[in-house]
């Protein structure tokens, strides 16, 4: 469908975001690296395999339980590199600041970024600042790019997924989205919901060491577990069966979803990956994840059953079945 103007929904990580990329950017920037549409581009320069990625951060509110826009900007890029098998090394950062933005807030954000970079063992080696007139941005926007080296021998890609693979997630889903909604709606929570924003490079390095046969990893950010699984199923042309009961969700996140009418499957994560590997390696992968602080609640949530029309089928908690597809529309609470 053709639109005259960009809608907010084009940025939602759902169907319209996909259309925006595939209809506008891909045909014009056409090249085999971009066409893979993975979280990072994997490039070979000389004998060295490198991964390279970029992401912009416009989160609102900029401070939320469990982090702020600065930590998010480091974690997001570190994770995009890591899920492609990369060891993140260096990052850039670009700041777009609104006239009148408080220095006190900026200092906290930069300090958090520095701490996040230290934890992830990456260096911020280049950057840029721009200041625009009041109203031209909402406080602060940050762009980060990152580069890393790829040492993993296997090919991590949606195209490597095989029937018989199991699907593993490294912990509870929806924490980040729920934390943001809670902060945005000014809800006074009875139990604190914290964003899961975290650097996963160490967890992923340990996991890759535990199995040489991992087929694919994806960062389950915008659009949540549901959108990423639906995207993978379509792209890999496989059927993914998921068992709702086995998906880890925190009780307080589930409670918020029940009250406001959200589905945790489609809430954003900032510290969660989805991993595909042969069933024979599942135990080793799971153990490696569970031994790490960012993977304690890791679980097998489903499997790739057979190659047919690309789709995700969820076995519901009461034994029914439903399709999980790319979300459309902005996330809105129910109206009656």
């Amino acid at each position, binding site marked *: *469908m053709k*639109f*005259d*103007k*960009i*809608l*907010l*929904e084009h940025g939602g990580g759902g*169907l*319209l975001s996909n*259309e925006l990329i595939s209809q506008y950017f891909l045909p014009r920037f056409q090249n085999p690296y971009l066409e893979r549409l993975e979280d990072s581009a994997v490039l070979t320069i000389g004998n060295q395999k490198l991964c390279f990625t970029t992401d912009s951060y416009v989160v609102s509110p900029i401070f939320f339980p469990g982090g702020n826009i600065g930590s998010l900007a480091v974690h997001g890029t570190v994770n995009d590199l890591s899920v492609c098998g990369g060891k993140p090394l260096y990052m850039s950062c670009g700041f777009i600041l609104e006239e009148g933005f408080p220095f006190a807030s900026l200092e906290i954000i930069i300090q958090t970024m520095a701490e996040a970079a230290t934890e992830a063992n990456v260096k911020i080696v280049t950057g840029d600042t721009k200041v625009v007139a009041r109203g031209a941005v909402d406080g602060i926007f940050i762009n980060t790019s990152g580069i890393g080296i790829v040492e993993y021998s296997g090919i991590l890609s949606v195209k490597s997924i095989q029937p018989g693979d199991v699907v593993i997630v490294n912990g509870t889903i929806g924490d980040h989205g729920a934390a943001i909604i809670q902060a945005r*709606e000014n809800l006074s929570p009875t139990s604190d919901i914290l964003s899961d924003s975290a650097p996963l490079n160490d967890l992923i390095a340990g996991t890759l060491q535990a199995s040489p046969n991992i087929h694919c990893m994806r960062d389950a950010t915008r659009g949540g577990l549901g959108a990423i699984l639906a995207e993978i199923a379509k792209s890999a042309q496989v059927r993914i069966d998921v068992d709702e009961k086995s998906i880890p969700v925190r*009780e307080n996140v*589930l*409670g918020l979803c*029940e009250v*406001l*009418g959200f*589905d945790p499957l489609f809430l954003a994560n900032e510290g969660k990956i989805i991993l595909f590997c042969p069933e024979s390696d599942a135990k080793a992968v799971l153990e490696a994840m569970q031994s790490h602080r960012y993977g304690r609640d890791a679980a097998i949530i489903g499997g790739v059953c057979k190659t047919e029309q690309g789709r995700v089928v*969820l*076995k*519901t*908690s*009461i*034994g*029914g*079945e*439903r*399709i999980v*597809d790319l979300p*459309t*529309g*902005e996330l*809105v*609470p*129910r*109206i*009656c």
Partner: protein
Amino acid sequence: MKFIDEYRNPAIVKGLLKHIADVAQRLENPVTIMEICGSHTYAIGRFGIRKLLPDNIRLISGPGCPVCVTSTRDVDIALHLASLPNVIFATFGDMLRVPGTGGDSLQKKRAEGADVRVVSSADECIGIALSHSAKEIIMMGIGFETTAPTIAAVVSTCREKDIRNFSVFSVHKIVPPAIHALLADPLLKIDGFLCPGHVSTMIGADAYRMMPEAGRAAAITGFEPVDILEGVWMLLQQIESNKMDVAIQYSRGVRPEGNTRAMTLLHSVFETADAQWRGLGTIPASGLTLRDEFAAFDTMKKFSAPDIQTGDIPGCGCGDILRGIKLPHDCPLFRKVCTPINPIGPCMVSSEGTCSTYYKYY
């Protein structure tokens, strides 16, 4: 009690399915049950309940999604109001993408510069009105007896606090007249109704007496899997014994007389008026309009109302789907032309819309 786990308990679900299968086996004829409420349609899809039922028990969806039953004319008026200069147009999120004539929507109006704001609760409008005293705030009042009292409360507050830059564009509807219309529809063959739990907390169980009187089974039902399956079982028992009644499955929320305080508030601000329903046409006394003493808060009286007389979108099957005469798959546009990205009718937009639920979950 956490009110989630217990009502999704697989063992209880299994037990109820067994009861349902037992009754279903003894029934001579297939049974058609309509869930009136959009939240039921959504829950049935989300939990995959339809497939768990015996083949001779058919669930069809009714006109209980307030977004879906809003006529194209009312959507066109909303689009007009949102485009007026100096207006902040507040709406519940589900209305954003509903297409008016020619595919225009509040979402597109917003991208063109209209100040359209999504609110989760009508009382957010009071804050918006106070902080934008030079602007006119129009709230699109949509929903059934569940939502209307909250809008009534905001209108009351605005009158008390002398907030003059707020008005309501009311497309509110009430449920009982629509049920009368359904019962009178000769095309519709329904044996029993799953009645809406939330609306019933307001209007009470007595509001459904016309169902058993018309020989139809009725059960007011909650929204969890155990609720819905127990509701189905209650309906089947009524049908098997031919003793029709209004059963209250959702007893943790519903009383026979309803919430009289909320209904009093509603009727102090609103009065009934004829209303256009998509699919059902104009139903006498089925809408809510502001009483004369609240005329200052009635958008249609405050602004020169445009003379928009558009009909429903040609080719769109939402009308028949809302009456339960057709399923989404029977509509020639479904999945082909009409998709969640390019919704032709509102049933494809709202998360509780029948077409959207079928598109997503089946």
